């Protein structure tokens, strides 16, 4: 009879997906910021 480790499985996949999604979101925001900077350079 296998051990009941359903909660750990859910936690494992949740952590994997959260880390991936967070990185993708950060990447998208950084790209948007860099594009904006290229289109509207800050005045020095």
């Amino acid at each position, binding site marked *: 009879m*296998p051990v009941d480790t359903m909660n*750990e*499985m859910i936690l494992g*996949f949740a*952590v994997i997906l959260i*880390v991936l999604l967070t990185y993708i979101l950060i*990447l998208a925001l950084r790209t948007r910021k*860099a594009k904006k900077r*290229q289109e509207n*350079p800050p005045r020095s």
Partner: protein
Amino acid sequence: MLEKSPLLTLLDILSLILIAGALILILFFTPLERVMGPVQKVFYFHVASAWAGMLSFILGAAAGAGYLITRRDTWDALSLSAIEVGLVFGLIAILSGMIWAQPIWNTCWVWEPRLTTTAVMELIYLAYFILRGGLGTPEIRARLSTVYAIISVITVPLTFFSIRLFRTIHPVVIAPGSDSAFNMTPRMLTPFFISLVTFTILLIDLVWHRTRLAILQIENQKEGR
């Protein structure tokens, strides 16, 4: 302005479909491991992310060598991007491994060869960004950090072979004939290889996106923006 290639859009869609497909396959169609139960299913993405991380670090070193030979910024951008993405995959492998280990080893961390070499590899690549941030001119920054990326790649084979060279409680995934090998049935092997392909494609997609950002940042810096 750096235009987005249609191939990159295709890769985005493919990555999304593959991740969803692999997840459904793992959760609903793979057999339950008879001792560990459901948590063993984390294994498919755990190994795939460790694989993607190591592949990414090798790519970072290869691109670093490309920079040293050609002195073109694109190679430095690729090297930086591959290392950053590799760190994310490495973090996923460590965290998912800890969650898997908790109910199976009764502890989430043991200072045994595989876990130790993985932690050292992750820290060495984390230091790459500290080094980059501390260097002044773009040319010196690119040159020194690519040299660092090439030297650091030694941690990849060290981590990969640690379970084969030393006595460890970490299972060896592919080692035909070995007592410590993970004996996977064909119904486990298929999702395992699908996960490896999925994470490899996701790695290419993320590195491509990150390289576009790095090139954009280099252009902005050169033009004083």
